[in-house]
């Protein structure tokens, strides 16, 4: 019975939506199917065409396990339908209907149902119940449905009155028929068929009999004709009576089905009880279209009757009441996901039932917050905003302890990991200068996770890289022209990256860095020698590098410091060099010898001595 209720009522929800807005074929898809809570696949049959029938080609079916509703070749998740969500959110935001009017209205409905209840449905009670219908109809929540019910009851009664009048007419006709039949019998008796007077002449006798028959027929003709007319009228009135009764039943049943489809189950109960009170012949079989009949018959397996609708309405009301109780309990347990689903299920069928209408807004708001976040999560995953989705999952985990985060989390982590892997590959491609792979990997990463922060920084880096690289190359060219190798050396990482793809500048940079290695080596050696107290040796170490790289500031500074420390040696050597330049070989050699005496390991002194000795004694 419960499955029947689910199936029928899920269909009712969509029927109501369809009636109110548009056909199910035009219902918007609820998304591509985000992994978390939305296995929602609006899968339309390839050749599906809008059906002309009221219920489409197929009977709607609902699978409570998957919460998938199937109808006319299309599937919906009942919890993830835009129209349903809109109605549900409207309900969650609405204030509870516990005002005086609402209480009065429910009181009237309860009174009507009570008066029509089996055992209470006396003629007086039915009349009183009928009189209460216009009162109930005055309330806005009723939507004038009680008026419609009152109209149906009234029409049925009028129809029954007409039937009685037809019965009276038939009685009169019957009397007239009897009268005509009597007259016909009298007329026949006045013209008896006597023996012919002609004796043995057969021809004369036959002619005489023929004349007598004609006289008799002529006398009976008016009565026979009238009798036929009266009989025809009687048959016509009987047929009219039967047709009128069936027509009224059909109209009444259509109204009951309409209430059912509108999920106005209290009205269904009232209508079915009025039906039984009005049509007392025991014929409760539904005479609706085959599609509507199949809606009930396919689930219950039995021919639908007014009693079927009555039972289904009662079951739905009980189910909605249980759903609200379950929601309240689950809310107390902080199990918001289950609570929201139970409330959504109860709302889907029992939207207009007092159990749902009187639920306090304060309690409904918690479900609303959860619903909004889950909807936001679906949207976030739908648009592949996994950062927001991860944040929402964390929030939902905190607010609803029964929130099943495994699916969204798996989807988020898979997408983010794959995207990050593509970005890592893109970085490798960028480092190796593989532009094609870089573009492909970036495209793949973007498709998977368009809002990946790493992708953003990577993109910014790529955009800015061109400027940075260009500026670095300009700086390099400028420093190179200034022979400012020290600055190039100090900022070598920037220039190495910038000149990586420029063969000419790469070679220039390599040469600069090699020279700087020599200078740095000389400075390091000089410092080490100076630490040992050999200032002349330290000076010579940097002097060699200085001769090759006179523009290096750091080398100059070290050289100047060491010149001060080894002033005597340096001055001696300088004098020797000056005299050598003046070609005063003798005195120059004397100074070189003196320098060597000061610093015996001096290469400069030894070289000067060797050079000048060669001048004095070229043969050696």
């Amino acid at each position: 019975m419960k499955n029947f209720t689910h199936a029928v009522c899920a269909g009712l929800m969509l029927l109501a939506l369809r009636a109110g807005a548009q056909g199910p074929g035009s219902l918007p898809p609820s998304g591509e199917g985000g992994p978390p809570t939305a296995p929602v696949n609006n899968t339309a049959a390839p050749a599906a065409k809008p059906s002309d029938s009221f219920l489409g080609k197929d009977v709607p079916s609902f699978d409570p396990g998957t919460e998938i509703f199937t109808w006319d070749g299309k599937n919906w998740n009942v919890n993830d339908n835009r129209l349903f969500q809109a109605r549900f959110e409207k309900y969650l935001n609405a204030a509870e209907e516990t005002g005086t009017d609402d209480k009065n209205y429910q009181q009237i409905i309860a009174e009507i149902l009570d008066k029509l209840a089996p055992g209470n449905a006396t003629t007086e009670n039915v009349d009183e119940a009928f009189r209460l219908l216009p009162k109930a109809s005055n309330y806005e929540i009723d939507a004038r449905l009680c008026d419609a019910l009152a109209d149906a009851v009234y029409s049925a009664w009028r129809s029954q009155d007409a039937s009685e009048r037809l019965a009276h007419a038939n009685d009169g006709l019957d009397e007239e028929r009897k009268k005509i039949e009597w007259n016909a019998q009298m007329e026949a008796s006045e013209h008896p068929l006597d023996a012919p007077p002609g004796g043995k002449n057969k021809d004369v006798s036959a002619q005489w009999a023929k004349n007598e028959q004609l006289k008799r027929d002529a006398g009976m003709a008016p009565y026979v004709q009238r009798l036929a007319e009266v009989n025809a009228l009687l048959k016509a009135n009987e047929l009219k009576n039967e047709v009128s009764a069936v027509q009224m039943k059909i109209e009444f049943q259509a109204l009951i089905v309409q209430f059912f489809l509108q999920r106005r189950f209290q009205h269904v109960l009232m209508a079915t009880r009025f039906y039984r009170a009005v049509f007392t012949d025991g014929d409760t079989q539904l005479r609706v279209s085959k599609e509507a009949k199949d809606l009930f018959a396919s689930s219950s397996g039995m021919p639908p009757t007014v009693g079927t609708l009555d039972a289904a309405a009662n079951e739905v009301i009980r189910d909605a009441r249980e759903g609200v109780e379950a929601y309240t309990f689950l809310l107390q347990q902080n199990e918001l996901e289950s609570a929201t689903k139970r409330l959504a299920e109860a709302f889907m069928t029992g939207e207009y039932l007092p159990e749902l209408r009187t639920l306090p807004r304060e309690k409904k708001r918690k479900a609303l917050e959860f619903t909004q976040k889950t909807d936001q999560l679906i949207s976030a995953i739908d648009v592949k905003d996994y950062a927001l989705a991860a944040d929402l999952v964390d929030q939902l985990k905190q607010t609803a302890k029964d929130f099943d985060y495994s699916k969204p989390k798996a989807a988020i982590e898979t997408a983010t990991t794959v995207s990050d892997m593509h970005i890592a590959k893109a970085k490798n491609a960028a480092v190796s200068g593989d532009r094609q792979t870089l573009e492909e990997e970036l495209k793949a990463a973007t498709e998977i996770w368009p809002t990946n922060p790493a992708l953003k920084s990577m993109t910014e880096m790529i955009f800015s890289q061109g400027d940075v690289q260009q500026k670095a190359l300009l700086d390099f060219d400028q420093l190179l022209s200034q022979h400012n190798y020290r600055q190039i050396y100090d900022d070598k990482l920037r220039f190495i990256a910038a000149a990586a793809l420029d063969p000419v500048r790469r070679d220039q940079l390599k040469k600069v860095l090699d020279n700087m290695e020599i200078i740095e080596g000389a400075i390091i050696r000089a410092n080490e020698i100076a630490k040992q107290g050999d200032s002349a040796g330290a000076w010579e170490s940097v002097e060699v590098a200085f001769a090759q790289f006179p523009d290096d500031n750091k080398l100059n500074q070290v050289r100047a410091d060491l010149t001060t420390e080894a002033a005597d040696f340096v001055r001696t050597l300088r004098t020797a060099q000056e005299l050598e330049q003046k070609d005063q070989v003798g005195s120059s050699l004397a100074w070189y010898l003196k320098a060597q005496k000061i610093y015996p390991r001096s290469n400069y002194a030894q070289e000067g001595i060797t050079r000048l000795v060669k001048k004095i004694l070229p043969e050696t």
Partner: protein
Amino acid sequence: MPRRASSSVNPFWTLGAVVVILAASIAGGYFLYSFVSDPFRTLEPLDVASYLENSSSMRQNVYKLNCTVDNQLAWSPSAGRLFSVETDPGGDILPVLVPAKLNDVNIQKGQRFFLRIIVGDKGILHVEGLRKV
């Protein structure tokens, strides 16, 4: 009979005078020997400082130089031997070229010589004569 005071010279004074005279004689002898043994005593000693500052102004001048052999820098059978010598006094190191005609003279490190030198072309000191001290 009263003893007469002695009139003889104190022997300590006598011994001192003898030592002084002997030392003076030795010094004088040494000085005289030195003076007599320097064959170039008539030549003007080389002004090492001026030479080191500007040898061009002393070109073709002849000087005497007392020195100690420091090291042999080079040798040529035809041109002779080039030595570095340490001047005495002064201790400056100077290169001197001993020509091949003086190859028969053994010149070793640490030996002291009196040199007769001439400031040659490019300020090179050519030894014209030498004598061991």
